[in-house]
């Protein structure tokens, strides 16, 4: 740690990465404790997603698929809840299906979050919405369900028969009016391949990691709309005028980004001010 060896510049080039962890933690927790409230701009992709949801008609049958772990739910819950809120306002009928065992309790959280709207619109279990549980354990299950729904799904998540619910109107892929997929990448390509490819309208809200992988499906028209990560969810909340977890998180979101940007800048100053000088010195000495 000799001072003459570069001092602050050396630190900037080679500091312990645990400082990054600590700083990131602090800037994220801070704003959550004292929210500031910042404005947000809405991207065209989110507008497109909103437009598709606007076209939902009363009584439409919507397949609400949660292909996510708890971790993914934390990221996209704002989009999930805002979408559900819109669907309830439009009086659509919603069936929840999940592709990850951890997601089996998530529908319960969603229903709790939009309880007020559901009561206002007189939503009843079985008639207006139903929770199907773990119905997509593998690709074959998704494919079979697309071709003959009732051959795969016989009961809801707690073992009550689905006969007599609005699912009686579902035979195969053609009968769904919309698939709203919330995903970390699990089973998503199965839904695309066996439903959307055949022509079922499908929209998606994916985590940030999957944006680049899913965007080609949006661009080629297989997906009608793609809501992106937590930011997309916050934008949607902004559009429907009902702030939720997404918008409150945006402060920490901004600061997390700035922390990273500052670290990148520090790293570059350190690199040009110290590392590079050292390298040049070494190569000069070698000559």
């Amino acid at each position: 740690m000799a001072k003459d060896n570069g001092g602050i510049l050396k630190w900037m080039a080679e500091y312990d990465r645990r400082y990054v962890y600590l700083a990131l933690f602090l800037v994220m927790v801070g704003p959550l404790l004292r929210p500031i409230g910042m404005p947000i701009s809405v991207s065209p992709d989110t507008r497109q997603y909103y437009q598709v949801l606007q076209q939902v008609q009363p009584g439409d049958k919507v397949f609400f698929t949660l292909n996510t772990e708890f971790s993914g739910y934390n990221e996209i819950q704002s989009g999930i809840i805002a979408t559900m809120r819109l669907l309830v306002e439009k009086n659509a009928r919603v069936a929840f299906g999940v592709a990850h065992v951890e997601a089996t309790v998530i529908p319960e959280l969603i229903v709790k979050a939009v309880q007020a709207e559901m009561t206002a619109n007189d939503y009843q279990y079985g008639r207006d919405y139903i929770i199907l549980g773990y119905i997509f354990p593998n690709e074959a299950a998704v494919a079979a369900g697309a071709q003959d729904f009732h051959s795969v799904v016989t009961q809801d998540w707690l073992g009550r028969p689905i006969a007599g619910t609005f699912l009686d109107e579902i035979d195969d892929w053609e009968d769904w009016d919309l698939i709203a997929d919330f995903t970390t990448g699990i089973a998503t390509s199965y839904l695309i391949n066996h439903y959307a490819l055949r022509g079922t309208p499908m929209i998606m809200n994916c985590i940030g990691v999957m944006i680049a992988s899913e965007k080609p499906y949006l661009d080629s028209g297989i997906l009608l709309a793609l809501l992106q990560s937590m930011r997309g969810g916050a934008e949607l909340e902004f559009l429907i005028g009902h702030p939720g977890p997404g918008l409150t998180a945006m402060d920490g979101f901004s600061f997390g980004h700035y922390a990273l940007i500052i670290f990148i800048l520090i790293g570059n100053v350190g690199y040009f001010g110290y590392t590079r000088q050292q390298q040049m010195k070494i190569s000069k000495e070698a000559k």
Partner: protein
Amino acid sequence: MLFSVPGIINGRFIGFLLDIAMAALVYYYIKTRKMVHIRRVPGLDAIEEAVGRSAEMGKPVICSYGIGGFTYWTLAGLSILSHVAHLTAKTGSRLIVPTGGGDQSLIVRPVAEEIVKTAYTMEGVEDQYNPDDLPFYSGQQYAYIGGYVGVMQRVRPGSVIMTGSHASEAMNIAETSNAVGAITITSGSYISNVAALACASDYILIGEEAPAAGAYLSEDPAQRASIRVQDLFKWLAIAVMVLGIAARSLGNDLMLRLLST
């Protein structure tokens, strides 16, 4: 749509045709057992250099092939593992191969053991093969990360070569590997992973480079043939795009209609 074929569902003919064409090509190459020429990807030099440097420093090498089942990525990872095992057997470095990580990985593990053992036997140092250096870190991704990271922190490897079917755990591994000062060579199988690894690694085999490297190292004509067939289809894709764009720019949508036939 351009035309309809009796007996075949409208809009699905071209896909059917392409599938059949691909199968026929693969079959043809396998039958003729021709050794297709594959170029050497630069990543292989990086691997060889890394293993050499580890030997100079007297440090072990860690090499993993992924956590998936038998997919196209895992096979590539296994081919590279075989190459690395030959190199470490020659240079006398210790080779550690973390295994497990997924439900499907259970069936791959015996094959990996076989590969490392064969490599050591072929180099005439069978006595140096130690089955305990292929630790099994359970069939769960998170436990696998814990084990992998733990072994890196303890043995301080000279290089970490991580190819094959790795998923999000790749970032934990690459960052820890870098923190313990190892030369980090990775490959990623989907784009966000590749982008993150491109930053985190000293050298990265981007996407298809890993299977191509595997096929280059492999003596199996079928593996090489599949790289050739893939190349042919990529050429086809480019040709169709260029023709289609040219036609569309002149106001003709023949190609688009053909593709939707």
